[in-house]
């Protein structure tokens, strides 16, 4: 079934299959962007600048982790923006900026993300609604709930700051590495382990390749599908927590960029959009590439609307390069 159309079969002998080559390309692209950035703007590749870019990339990377899980089974999660935004607002409104309430607020927030993912997954897996439609509807539901319950961000609690504990945790550093980045590295390790070395990961790939065959082989397809959407919701909520900790306050629309960015990261990272192929290691590199690209454009004084256009073009070009559906027969 795998139609190896690689230009260099000798690379295959080195263990560089097409999937691994794509991950390699994503890393090469990231490095190249840093080089270009350093040429456009001296100091771009300095230690402080790289750390800042990687920190911003970690937010995208967390959302992309959830997106990778659902894309691996050929799904998609369009509910990311308002799950993230709702989580950010829920964190400040339940904690009211008080450290003593932070654990409870964190639990509520991540629980909310899990609940949104659970509903997505249940309806998609058990009621057979297409993932695009269900997650788009969930995005609307979360948007309406967030706007309505916060009175359009006019509620008194909405102006609260994130608890100091959370802010410090995000802004702090361990061994000279920003804390958000440390968390991301941990997430990369855990997600990669899950995908490569656990039965859950194997089942995910199996469903992505052929749901019917996996069902016949004894995989509980519906349960795994549901869990993957739960993971996506939790990661979106986690990104919301980090973002609000990073910025201090929540705002409406703060989740909007993350839909495109997470999908672009997944595509750049060489994850096959129809499922079954790809790895989070690639998507993580995709997140870095994307944020580095945006930073280069910002260094070149690209206006805000230009970024949207660039995201779109990057996704399209990469899809044309290697996201093509294989010709039947």
């Amino acid at each position, binding site marked *: 079934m795998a139609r190896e159309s690689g230009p260099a079969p000798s690379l295959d002998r080195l263990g560089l299959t097409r999937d691994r080559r794509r991950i390699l390309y994503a890393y090469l692209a990231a490095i190249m962007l840093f080089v270009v950035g350093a040429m456009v703007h001296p100091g771009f590749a300095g230690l402080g600048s790289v750390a800042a870019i990687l920190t911003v990339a970690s937010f995208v990377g967390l959302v992309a982790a959830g997106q990778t899980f659902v894309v691996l089974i050929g799904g998609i999660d369009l509910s990311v923006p308002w799950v993230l935004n709702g989580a950010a607002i829920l964190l400040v409104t339940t904690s009211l900026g008080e450290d003593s309430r932070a654990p409870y607020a964190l639990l509520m927030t991540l629980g909310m993300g899990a609940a949104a993912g659970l509903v997505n997954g249940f309806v998609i897996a058990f009621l057979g609604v*297409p993932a695009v439609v269900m997650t788009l509807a969930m995005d609307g*539901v979360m*948007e309406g*709930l967030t*706007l309505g319950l916060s009175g359009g961000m006019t509620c008194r609690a909405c102006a609260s700051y994130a608890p100091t504990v959370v802010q410090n945790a995000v802004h702090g550093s361990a061994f000279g590495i920003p804390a958000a980045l440390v968390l991301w590295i941990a997430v990369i390790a855990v997600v990669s382990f899950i995908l490569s070395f656990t039965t859950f990961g194997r089942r995910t790939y199996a469903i992505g390749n052929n749901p019917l065959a996996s069902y016949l082989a004894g995989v509980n397809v519906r349960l795994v599908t549901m869990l993957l959407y739960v993971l996506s919701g939790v990661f979106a909520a986690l990104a919301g927590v980090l973002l609000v900790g990073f910025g201090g306050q929540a705002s409406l629309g703060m989740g909007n960029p993350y839909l495109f960015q997470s999908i672009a990261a997944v595509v750049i990272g060489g994850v096959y959009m129809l499922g079954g192929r790809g790895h989070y290691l690639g998507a993580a590199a995709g997140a870095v590439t994307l944020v580095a690209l945006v930073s280069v454009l910002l260094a070149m004084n690209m206006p805000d*609307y230009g970024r949207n*256009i660039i995201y779109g073009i990057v*996704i*399209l070009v990469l899809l044309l390069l290697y996201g093509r559906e294989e*010709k039947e027969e």
Partner: protein
Amino acid sequence: LSTDATVERPRPPRLVYFLAQNTGLVLAQAMLVTAIAVYCAVFWLTEAALPGNFEITSTVNNTMPLALTAMGQAFVVVARGLDLSVGGVMDLTNALAAIHLHDNLASMVGWSVVILLIGAALGLVNGLLVGVGRLQPILVTLATLAIYQGLAIRILPQPGGSIPTAYTSALVNPNQPTALIYVLLLAFLWYAFRRSSIGVAIFALGNDELAARANGVDTVRARVIAFVLSGFMSAAAGLFLAASATAGDATTGDGYTLSSIVAVVLGGMNLFGGRGSGVGVIAGAFVTTMIVNILFFSNIDPLYQSFYEGLFLVIAVVLSALVGRLLRPRR
């Protein structure tokens, strides 16, 4: 019409057969009647009168952009795709209209035609990427949505511009529900499409792509044309929106991506392609507007609007799947 009964088997009673073939359409009309009844009831309770000329006119005028873009979405959905970029096309055409329409006949007619053609061209880009580039419709239109939205803001950074009053009164008459004529035209357009060779090709493509190709349908061409039609209809929706707002806003179309899918699903279209009626979609668009109206008169905060849209979308998809299964036990 496409019939499943190519294999000889005992035919069910005619009414059941009709219902099974047109489940979506019948459900959509039933929903429309229910929505109108609930709307009248809520209106009666709050205003102690039945909706009059003003309410009917504003409802029809408010629904026109959605009906147009949902019809465009329907062409793509029949071809087993989904067009997420309709909101972006509306943004872009809306912004263009606000900048270029001036108060003389030549400008109004000329630029309307140009804007409609631009909409078709935007659809063509989608169609070529999906059809010739063999990419997934969702990803392509998600990417072009970002591009079109960016271009729209480039053209009209702040809400503004102006639409000539003559243009507004020609498209959206605020005094009489003359826009109902456009609704009829839209229904007529659907029937013309359904009976045209390209309509047959698109339906065949949506039902079974391999079989359609084996029977000599140019599936690439059919798919591209479906997207072109969608872009064209969304451009028309953008013009209507500009006319009724009398000014332009480069983000005003954003919500229509979700709403158009809601209208298509409420209208009984099968999201897996090849089944459904444009008349149902028009009804679906009216139901969507009615829901907003009902929420308004029941004193529900308009901030919750997308919550209810999302909720009704899920309920409609699940229900139509269940009803379809009940009426068509074989499939």
